[in-house]
Structures are given as C-alpha cells and as structure tokens.
C-alpha cells in the first residue's frame, strides 16, 4: 500500500510533459494509474517522477476522421463503453472496454495506460492488434506512428521510449469487418487466463491471442488456413495446431498445455462470432 518517495508534476501542456519525461529516465507518465499505482504500491517498480497527464484535455477526445476512429490516449474505458462514435464505428471497443475490471476502474483507466502497461492479462493489446490500430507517439523530435503489431515489445514494455508519450490510438474504419473478443477469466470477471480477438472481413481474418506470451500473438497460420471460409467446421479445423505453435507460460491458473488448448477454443469462438457479425 505504501509507495516509495516520488516526485509529481501535472504539466499543463504536451510540451511541458515531454520536457519532464525527457529530463529523467526514471520519469513515467501517469494516466489513469489503475496499473501503475498498483505496481508502485507493491514497490515492484518505482518511477522517480510521475508526470500526471490529467490536465492534457486534448488527449481525452474521441473523434472520427478519415483514418478511422481517433482515440486520445487519456480516453477512459468508461468513455469507450459509452461513446456513440465508438458504437457506430467500431463497437467492439466499447464492448470490450465494458468488460474491463469494474465500474470504478473503468472510470479512471485509460486506453493509453492499458496498452502502455501491456500486462499480458490486459484485453486491449490483443484487440488493437486484431483491429490493426496505429499508435501515435510524440517525442521531442516530433511525432511518429507505430502499428499495433510493432507497438508491444514485452511485459510492461512498448515502443514508447524514454522521453516519449503515446498520444493517440487510431482504429481504422471497419470496412465491413466483424469484430469479436473471447476470453476465459478466473471466476466470472477475474484475471484473464487466455483471450482472443478476431476481426473478420468476407475474405480474411486477423486473429490475435492474448495472455500466452509477453505480447499479443497473431495467429497467422490459422488466418492463412482459414482463407475466407468461416463455417464452423472450417474454423475449428483451422484452429488446430495453433496451440502447438505457442509457448505460453504456466501459472497457478493454467498450465502451458491448458493455455495452448484455450488459445484454440477462444480463437474459434472469437472468429465464429466475428463472422456472424459480418453476416448480420
């Protein structure tokens, strides 16, 4: 419960935030804090400076542009779950956001925090890879864009380097795609054991498995095997062998073998539901 000493700043501009973040390699951005504060309470990790992004209201916007849905890094799960733009453009984001933790966490936790912490049990990393989202990262040298697939580097590690800040997540328009997410949790709503996200168009699918590695794992072979056939038998057939390609960790909730098996089950469920959504 009791954190190490830390410095705190609440910059009022992005420039100021970047300056502080760049001034000390122990500075970390504080978004909703629903992961970071917990880790700090456990003293498992200890930033030297917390840069609270709360005053950067420009990061809380949800808008629809030509590139699709633009989500500021400080958009909360609750916002995602209730946003009409999200519901119209890419409803899966709202659906999954509403599944995260609980009301109180959803009121504080942000999309940026979720993906920057990249805890393997988080729902959004595999989903955003499946949706082929792009992350906008700002640093003192300017802005760059990284695809979701390249964004996640490890547990608690992403492409956001020291001194940089994730400002925006862009989710492409669906283009007729159906999206779905399936997960097995501890109890009805607890820690995630394995998750799968799928985005299916009439001809192809993007399938991503969560909680089986440090980063979301794209099921490329299953995608290839599927082609454009989303009949139940074909999907089940295509999922076979997916587990064998994974090297998931075993822990108190699941052995590596069980996770391999669940990866196939969840992938099938996500793809079938996504395909169903394409049809309807």
């Amino acid at each position, binding site marked *: *419960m*009791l*954190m*190490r*000493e830390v410095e705190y700043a609440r910059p009022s501009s992005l420039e100021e935030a970047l300056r502080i973040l760049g001034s000390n390699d122990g500075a970390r951005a504080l978004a909703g804090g629903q992961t970071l504060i917990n880790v700090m309470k*456990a*003293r498992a990790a200890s930033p030297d400076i917390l840069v609270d992004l709360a005053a950067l209201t420009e990061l809380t916007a949800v808008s629809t542009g030509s590139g699709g849905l633009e989500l500021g890094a400080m958009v909360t799960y609750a916002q995602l779950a209730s946003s009409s733009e999200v519901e119209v453009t890419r409803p899966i984001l709202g659906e999954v956001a509403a599944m995260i933790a609980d009301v109180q966490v959803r009121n504080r936790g942000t999309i940026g925090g979720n993906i920057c912490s990249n805890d393997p049990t988080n729902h959004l990393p595999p989903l955003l890879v499946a949706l082929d989202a792009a992350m906008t990262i700002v640093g003192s040298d300017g802005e760059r864009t990284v695809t979701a697939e390249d964004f996640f580097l490890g547990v608690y590690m992403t492409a956001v380097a020291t001194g940089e800040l994730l400002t925006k997540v862009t989710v492409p328009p669906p283009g007729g795609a159906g999206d779905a997410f399936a997960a*097995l949790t*501890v*109890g*009805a*709503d*607890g*820690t995630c*054991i394995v998750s799968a996200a799928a985005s299916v168009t009439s001809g192809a699918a993007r399938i991503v498995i969560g909680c089986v590695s440090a980063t979301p794992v794209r099921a490329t072979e299953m995608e290839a095997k599927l082609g454009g056939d989303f009949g139940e038998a074909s999907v089940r057939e295509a999922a076979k062998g997916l587990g064998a390609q994974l090297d998931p960790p075993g*822990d*108190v*909730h*699941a*052995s590596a073998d*069980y996770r391999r*098996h*669940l990866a196939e*089950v969840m992938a099938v469920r996500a793809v079938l539901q996504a395909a169903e959504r394409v049809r309807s």
Partner: protein
Amino acid sequence: MSTTTITTESGTVLEKGAIGQSIPRKEDKRLVQGQGVFFDDVRRHGTGYVHFVRSPYAHAKIVSIDVSAALALEGVYGTITGDEVAIHTDPFFEMSTPPGANIKDYALAVGKVRFQGEPVAAVCAATRELARDAAELVEVEYDPLDVLVDPEASAADEVVLHEEAGSNVVWSGVFDWGDVDQALAEADHVVKIKRLHFHRFSSTPLECSGALVEYQRGTGQWTLYCNHQMPGVGAIWMAPALRCGIDKLRFVTQDIGGAFGNKICLHPYYVVLCLLARKLGRPVQWTEWRTDQHMANAHGNERTFLDVEVAVRSDGTMTGFKVKALDDCGAFPRYEPLGCIIWAQVTPGCYAWRNIRVDFTQVCTNKAPVSPNRGYSRMQHLWLTERIIDIVAAELGLDPVEVRKRNYVKAEQMPYETPNGCVYDSGDYARSLDIALELIGYDGLEQRRKDAEARGKLLGFGIGSTLDSGTNNFGQSQMLNPDLQFSGNNEAATVKLDIFGEVVVTIGTVPQGQGHETTASQVVADIIGCSPEQVHVRPGYDTWFNSNVGLSGTYASQFAVTGLGAVKGASELLRDEMIKLAAFVLQAPEDQIELADGMARIKDGPEEAALPFMALGAIVNANNAFLPPDFNPTLNHRYVFRPYFGPVDLEQKMGKLTLTYASQIHACLVEIDPETGQTEIVDYAAVDDCGVRIHPQIVEGQVHGATAHAIGAALHEDFVYDEDGTLLTPNFYDYHVPHAMDMPPLKTGHVESPSPVSPLGAKGMGEGGGGGIHAVCAAIQDALRSAGAPIVYDSCNPSHRVWAMLQDAESTRALVEVTSR
C-alpha cells in the same frame, strides 16, 4: 407482533415477542453512515507506525540482521528483532503433547524462518510510508534450507522444521469407535478411495488484522485497540509470553470487519506491538495489508485423506468407514492441534454410521500457519463424508438422494448419540433435503440436463449435507493432551437498569457482523418487558467491562446458546429484582407484579399502580434511603452461562463434544463448459435448521455468507504454493473471492427443530459446515458423468482442474476401487 411459546431446557415458558422477529439491527445506522469504529480508525497522539520485515524464504537460517541503516533514517523511532523477542518474552504455550509440545514459537522468527512472509523484525516510524521505507533498509542475511510443502514428505522427517521438536509430526492418534474391521468384513461392497485432498483457503475477512497498542509505564498496563475475536485466549497466550499478569492486557474492540476464525491467532503480532510500545514509550499502530494477510496470517487447515475404506450393504446402507487423515498446519501449530479433535464433533456427519476409525496425523510444513476458519476442522471431515456418499453412490449406481435418506440419522432418532458419544440434539435432515430439492426444482432435472446439452453444456446436480456443531466442550482438548486445563464452556453478560431507566447490556462476545447488539436486545426486551429499542447493548468488547470469562469471544457457532444464554440469565436476575423492588414500592405481592411496556405494574391493578423503569433505576441508584437495611437491590447483574456436558472418556475418546447441532442441507445445479472446464452455478438452495431463530433475517444472512465462502472455496479460492514455498495467490487478483457476478441467486428455506438443550431452543449457526463445497463438488462429479466419469478428488475445482479431469478421467478413476461379494 406474533407470539410463540418456547419451552426451554429449564422448563420455563418464554413468550416470544421480540424474539423471532427480524427487527432493525442496532448496528446498522452507524455502519451505513461510515461512523463505525474499526481498529484502524482509532487515533492517538504521537503514534508510531509499525511495519514488519518479512522473510522472502520459506525455510532458511537467519545468519544476521542489521537494522543500523533503518535506524539511521530520519523519522524512525526504533526497531525490534527476533533476538530481542527471545530475551524479553517466553515462547508461546503449546497445546500439544510432545513432539508438538517442544516447538518454540516466538513473536518474531528466532534463528530461522519457516514460512514465506514470517516476520523477522519490525520497524516503527513516524508515518506508515516511512516505516516501510525503513523496513526495506533492514538487511537480513539468510542461509536457505530445503523446503517442505508436501505434508507426506514432511511426515517422513528427512528435513525437520523445528529442531527442538525433532519431528515434523505435531500430534497423531487413532480414533476407533464401533468395529470397523467387522463392518468391512461383513459388507456386501467395500469401496476404497486412495486419496482425497481438502485444499487450503481462508475466509479472508475484508478488514485485515491490526491494532493500536498503548503502554502505561507507571502501571505496566497495555491497552490494545484491536480486532481480536477471542481476546480471552489471546491474553492466555500473551500474558505468560510477556511475563505479565493477565489483567495487564486490556483488549478493546468495537466494530470488526469480519473475522470468521481468522482473527484468533493474532498473538505473535500483538506481542511485538506490546514490546515496541514499551520499548519506545509511545502508542504503536500496525495495519496488516492484504498481501501480508494472505502470506502470513491465517489459513484454513489443509487435509489429505488416504486409504478410505467404506463398508456398504447391498441396499445402500453404509455401516462405517476407516481413513488416514493427514492434516497440514503450516509452520507453527498455534491454535493446533485442536483441529485434530474438533472434527470428531461430527464424526459420522449426518449419517447413522456406527463403525469409524480415523488414524489422524498432523504435520508442520513451510507454509503459513493455520488458524480456525469458518467451519473449522468439521468442514474438512464433512467434505469427506459427503465425498464418501457421492463416490459410493456413483460407483454402485445408487441415487444420491435415496442413498442420503437411507443413511441419514432420522428425525425420530433424535436426540441421537453418535458412536463417539456426541448427542445430535434435534433435526430433520430428510425433510430439509426435500425442501432444498423443491427449491431447485429437482423434478425437472432430467429435462434441464437435456436443455443444457443442447447448448453444449454439461449439467450436474449435487447435495451437501452438513452439521454446524456449536458450543464446544473444551474438554475435548484433553483427548489431545490430558494435562490441558480446559473443559466445558461458558460466557458472560451483564444487564443493568440505569438511573434514568436505561437498560444497558454488556456482552462478553466479540461480534464481527453477527448482530449481537440486536439479538441480545431482543432477549432482554422479552424478559424484562420492554421494547428492544429501549435496550442499549454496548458495542464491542472491553476487558475492563468485567463482563467476560476466560475464553470469551465469538467463535464456534455458539452465541445463540452461550452468549444469549448469559444475556437471558442476567436478564432474569434483573427481572426478578425489579419485580421484588416494584412489589416493595407498590406494596403488592411479587406474583402480582408484571413487567411490560417499560413499566412495572400490578396485574389488573389501577393505572396509577405502575412504576416506569426510570423510577426503579432512580430508586436503586440514587434515591434509596427508604429501602430497608436487609433489602439491597443492585439492578446490575452479571451472569455466566455454563452448559453441562459431563465428563469425557479420554481413553475411548468419547463424550459430548458439543451441545447443539444445527444442520444445513444444500443442493445445487452447475453447468460445465466442456471446452474450457469452466463451471457456472445455475441454481442453488440452502435449507437451514438451527432450532428457534431469534432473528430470522440474521440467520438467513449467515446462510448466505457461509454459502458464498463455500462456493468461492469450491471453485477458485486456493492458497497454492510452489515447491520453493512461494505463495502463488497472495492477493485478490490470483486469489479470486466471489464477486457479485460470481454468486448465483441463492434460495433459502428453513426447518425449525428447537434444541431441547439450549436456553432459548436456539442453536449456534453461521459456519455452515462448508455445505456449498460439498454440493458443488458433487454437482461437478455428476456433470462429468457422461464425460468419462472422473472422480472429484479435490475440494477446489477451478477451470484448469475440471479441464484436466476431462482430459484424463482415468487417473482419477484409478483412485477408487470397489470389491463386492
């Protein structure tokens, strides 16, 4: 208000007025306003905050401890280490005979650590944060030792936790009643079960443990504002260790955020706080955090059952069983080895089995110490009896309902003496089961199975029959160790009529949500003739109220018997004296005085021939000159209720081990997703019979709570250790307790079989005997019948275990063997 007449053990007749009504709880208003006072809400000027330095190793020698860097930190008031504890205190008293008796248990680790999270030192500082900073600066050098997490390996004694004991076996003994060998020889079928495992979990009360401790140098008096649920026993452990008189330890509690048995073994922590308060000359405060509680406070007893053999007749009647039970108490026995005997209160479970042999052994391992946990020790044993019933039924093709009814102790057999001399006072298990079956719609079971199958799910049905034995006879401890000076049971209460006519009640119990203030007021109100609102029950416990006895506390399902028995006794003394006083003042014969509506009056007399309680209170307390010299009423009565048990036969291990037996019969339906192994409870009913229900809403609330604990334990609450003794479920992420979404809607029913042996016909209840664990395990086994019919061998069945059973039913089936003749 409706009125019911109760015939109690003393033959007196009590009119139920407030009793039996779900009146508003007295505790509620302050609690819903956030005005409760929990230990962590107590503030004292100049308090130092305490943080414990805990061992990262499960088993290691302590090579050295260096506190100098911690002491050098600004704001640090002081430290304490195991070496100081060993100088200033004596080891806690052990209940076992040797080898367990030789274990040396100090408040901090001395010389070595025996479980991960064991406190090795403590730091006291100006703020909570600083105390933790300083604790991190304490340098401890360890020399790791081989770790024992498997109780069977521990029993082999190749590595020994407590060198001074020379063995990891704390206690062992054989309990043998009837003639199980003959029963097995005469049986038509013998069902053997090689191994069953009852897992480690605890009730994890939402409020963790802690205390604020003050020390008065001039008098040597300690005051502990705390949440100990059995302060009498706490003091019995602590005073000799601290080498002080027992009255030098004053325990004060008000509101406690749940305890469930888990706040009985707090004495090691409290001794450290006492030492620090004395050493530093200031109040010290310690709040345990959740991770600390999971790692190092109280776990329930883990028990492995080996080589079970059950004697079954061709008609499904079981005549007995034998088993080897191996209990794992973790690193220190503390409240143990009481668990080695407590289960015997319910030896045959709900069944009329006459021949039972239990070869019981308890060992230490490098895990957190155990302490009583809701359903303490009986729950483990009742799980065994229910597993026996369902495994035998499955193997022999018997119907789980029929086989239970055939084997249950029948209502007409009550009171029923078990083979070990316990007396089940009342109950109707078969009727309770029928009600439970009706509540879950048992008649439609096969149709629901088909419906579930159509959705790709496996539906299973299960029953859990349990007993909640209450008001224990501490004399059973002498079966473990004949030198122990504990027997019988008692509890105190004080009831007084104050100067302005207020009725003030002081109870010896230490409530943690059971509504004692409310139920005590109901009993007092009915006896002295007023409404419960007129009765003030002091919240909490205070040693200095002088309204307690040696083992006062709230534990072992007994408040309705001992706590309310004491309240009843004290109220009757007060009533009799009020009548006497009123008779004197009103110049009427005593039998013409009635107490009602807050008045003492002459029956059928004129309206003015009445005295309000205020008048009585004022006379005795302040205006007493006119009372004659030989009449000296006090209107202030302390009463100690003591149930009679009679002697126990230490040789045969027989006797009345508890006074009352509430029963709970649970039934549930689960659906399992065969692809993932995930279990969902889709229907649930619990039927309780605790005799006279003083406050039906509170009784029902206890049933709900016990069921939730059981469901959590059956599906995911598990303290799992890896081979290095690291606890893998130290927080609410990985130790998943039921949330609102996890809990099915619960249906409840009740049967009221008044106890002939309890003062109010009420039985202690609230522990529930783990009914939900048994029912869920049975339902999972039933659901998997069509999927290889694995045997449910563990009391905890999270998705991964169910999935594993689906993958390999055979290895579980190999645990069971049936021999028929």
